[in-house]
């Protein structure tokens, strides 16, 4: 059953990808000035570097609010990369994705903020705030059992 589904689905998806790629390359009729092309490359590199910085904060961030704001900024970086790709390809196909990713990032931020607000100070919902080492051990390693 699953194998049948895969055998029908995968070629369909591959064909759709080919069609989309040809659509983009055929429609990319808008010429790009060399200065703008250079700026687009620089922007892609800079946005990727910014995503790495956000990811570092997402992994490191001592509190849950740090991680949520890093994820929000990461989503906005994705929107920025989609816009730069729109300029680079000269095609509108990906522009809808910008608004969609932006809305999803905003909604997830609001949801996490409500979660932090509702569970503040509750021992059964630790937020990863790490003021003392005992709390860190309890949060990160439940296998050791609850501390005395």
């Amino acid at each position, binding site marked *: 059953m699953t194998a049948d589904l895969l055998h029908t689905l995968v070629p369909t998806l591959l064909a759709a990808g080919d069609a989309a790629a040809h659509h983009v390359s055929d429609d990319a009729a808008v010429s790009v000035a060399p200065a703008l092309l250079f700026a687009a490359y620089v922007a892609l590199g800079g946005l990727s570097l910014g995503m790495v910085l956000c990811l570092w904060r997402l992994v490191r961030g001592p*509190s849950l609010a740090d991680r949520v*704001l890093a994820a929000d900024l990461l989503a906005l970086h994705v929107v*920025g990369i989609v816009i730069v790709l729109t300029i680079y390809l000269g095609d*509108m196909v990906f522009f809808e994705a910008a608004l969609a990713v*932006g809305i999803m990032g905003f909604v997830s*931020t609001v949801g996490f903020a409500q979660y932090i607000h509702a569970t503040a100070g509750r021992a059964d919902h630790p937020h990863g*705030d790490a003021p003392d080492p005992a709390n860190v051990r309890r949060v990160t390693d439940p296998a050791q059992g609850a501390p005395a």
Partner: protein
Amino acid sequence: MNTFFDILAAVFLLAGLFFFFVGALGVVRLPDVYHRLHAASKSSTLGLIGLLLAAACHLGTAEVGVKAIAVMLFLCVANPIGGHLLAKAALKAKTPQWDGTLSDESAG
């Protein structure tokens, strides 16, 4: 004329990249959650507005202009709301503040 708009788009693109990069750098370098929210919400709004203006200048159609304005309006509403909610939640959860914080009006 087309080249002029492309160079204008390149300027907007680099300005947006500057704001985005400053925001990411601030999120990594600033000392506590409230400072990091300050860096993340404002600079990313400005950076995305720059990138959208660049796209509108380069493509130059009414379709992309209208969509860019829609995304800008959404950002100008959504980003401050998200930052404000997150800061309020962090205050409620008593997320630690930087030692150099001068005043805390929520301390009461």
